[in-house]
């Protein structure tokens, strides 16, 4: 480089250098996120190609199939239920755990360990442990229900209990993870606020409702959005525990996409289902912008 290049040329050089530095990331992100995302929507308007014949344009036909496909509806309904139940439950339990562990409680570190350890386990390992836990007749859960005089339940085999049984595993694994965010948030709450409340003789519930809850609100929103995104990407425990059964009672969207795409090899229809999932994730991200504004928690 010459010692004093003209100013404009230097700025351009700097910009080129910037793009070159970002280039590997841009190429990979485009190749595995943006281009396939657009291609998915594109593909959803084509039939599944057979052999060497190129796919035919079919317009909205895949979406019409989806509209009349009872399994697609079941998957959507199951997924919404999944989100609606696991998200608030995980958050509520996470906050309860954090409140317990944040205070001076006997055996604090043991409790923290019990709450947090499930988070570290691979979901597949956790799923296999829980299958055992749920085993009809012999499993611990049935031994407990029997000890209390109940009958034996086939938790994963009965359509009415299978989905809740999967939800339990999700909550078990997620609550401890969210707990640490609440722990961090609780540490930020100024003790003077609690002292002031005590001076006013405020009750425990009032203190929680008027001080703790509003002050951990940003954490609650942050955790809620992340839990919501996760809820629409749940698939590991479905594959490991039920395979979508019994009678599609545990089929969730991503699992159904996997099944249609990789078991039935109906790529066109899988693309339409993926487009639906993308739309849902897009909705969640709009919600995220509305709720979190300019990245409250991201700084």
């Amino acid at each position: 480089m010459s010692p004093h290049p003209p100013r404009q040329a230097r700025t351009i050089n700097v910009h080129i250098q910037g793009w070159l530095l970002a280039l590997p990331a841009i190429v990979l992100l485009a190749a595995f996120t943006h281009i396939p995302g657009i291609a998915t929507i594109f593909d959803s308007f084509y039939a599944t190609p057979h052999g060497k014949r190129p796919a035919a344009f079919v317009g909205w036909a895949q979406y019409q199939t989806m509209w009349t496909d009872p399994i697609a509806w079941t998957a959507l309904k199951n997924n919404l239920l999944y989100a609606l139940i696991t998200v608030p439950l995980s958050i509520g339990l996470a906050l309860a755990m954090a409140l317990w562990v944040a205070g001076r409680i006997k055996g604090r570190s043991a409790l923290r360990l019990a709450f947090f350890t499930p988070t570290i386990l691979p979901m597949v390992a956790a799923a296999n442990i829980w299958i055992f836990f749920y085993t009809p007749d012999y499993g611990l859960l049935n031994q407990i229900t029997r000890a209390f005089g109940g009958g034996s339940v086939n938790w994963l085999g009965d359509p009415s209990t299978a989905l809740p049984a999967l939800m339990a595993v999700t909550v078990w694994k997620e609550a401890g993870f969210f707990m640490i965010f609440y722990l961090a948030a609780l540490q930020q709450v100024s003790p003077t606020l609690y002292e002031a409340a005590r001076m006013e003789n405020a009750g425990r519930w009032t203190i929680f409702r008027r001080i703790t809850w509003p002050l951990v609100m940003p954490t609650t929103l942050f955790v809620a959005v992340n839990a919501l995104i996760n809820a629409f990407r749940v698939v590991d425990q479905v594959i490991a525990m039920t395979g979508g059964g019994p009678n599609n009672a545990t089929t969730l969207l991503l699992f159904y996409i996997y099944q249609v795409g990789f078991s039935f090899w109906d790529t066109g229809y899988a693309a339409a289902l993926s487009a639906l999932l993308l739309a849902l994730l897009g909705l969640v991200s709009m919600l995220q912008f509305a709720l979190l504004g300019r990245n409250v928690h991201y700084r």
Partner: protein
Amino acid sequence: MSDRLFRLLSTLGAWVFGLVWALPLLYALWAAFHPSAFATHFDISAPVTTGNFIRAWEAAPFARYFLNTVMLVIGIMIGQFVICTLAAFALARGKLFGGEILFALILVQLMVTPDVLIMENYRTLQKLGLIDTLTGVGLPYVASAFGIFLLRQTFKSIPKELDDAARLEGASTLQTIWRVYLPLARPVYVAYGLVSISYHWNNFLWPLIVTNSTETRPLTVGLQVFASVDQGIDWSVICAAALMTSAPLMLAFLLFQRAFIQSFLRAGIR
């Protein structure tokens, strides 16, 4: 309610709840460390054994699965460190046209992870001839929006003066990154590394689709194959296998609990 009574009840509640939370794991530990006959039958006098672990280890190529997972996890981490550092630096020091738009586009991946687009990404891998390779399992995750985001925020907080000083001494851009930015961001790299390792140690769907041989299968997929095909219903062995595949992470977590929790907090999202 008096303060003492409340405290007592709260502690009691916490303990019952903690026990319930630990129950599935304790149960798995019980089954894994006792002969199959005692898997669902509790008896304090049951003999303790490591036989289930040995049987699991011998029944499936877990040694190979471990090797695959370790190579995968380390490969992804190194790739992420290099690629995300370069991109984050470019974005943090704001010297590229359209940097803001580029950053927004990058963040899309936080929501649309590669496993949401399994069909298309599988096809891409097919074209690249990377099906059933560890490179294929790792490649879509190497440019991580999360890593770029995290490092960009960190780099932004590093004083520009340090950068200028290095340049005055004649350091090139890469040298500046290496000598100024990397050392100052070390805790963030540790945090990101731990999060990345635990995410990819546990990742399942994508490797399940991409791999189909012992030589490439990571532990999670190997465990699933083992549990669904080979074992029937010998729960003691399956529990042993499940615990075995999680053991390195669990041990690391027990030893560096504080670092782990700090990392997850710092990183925010997995």
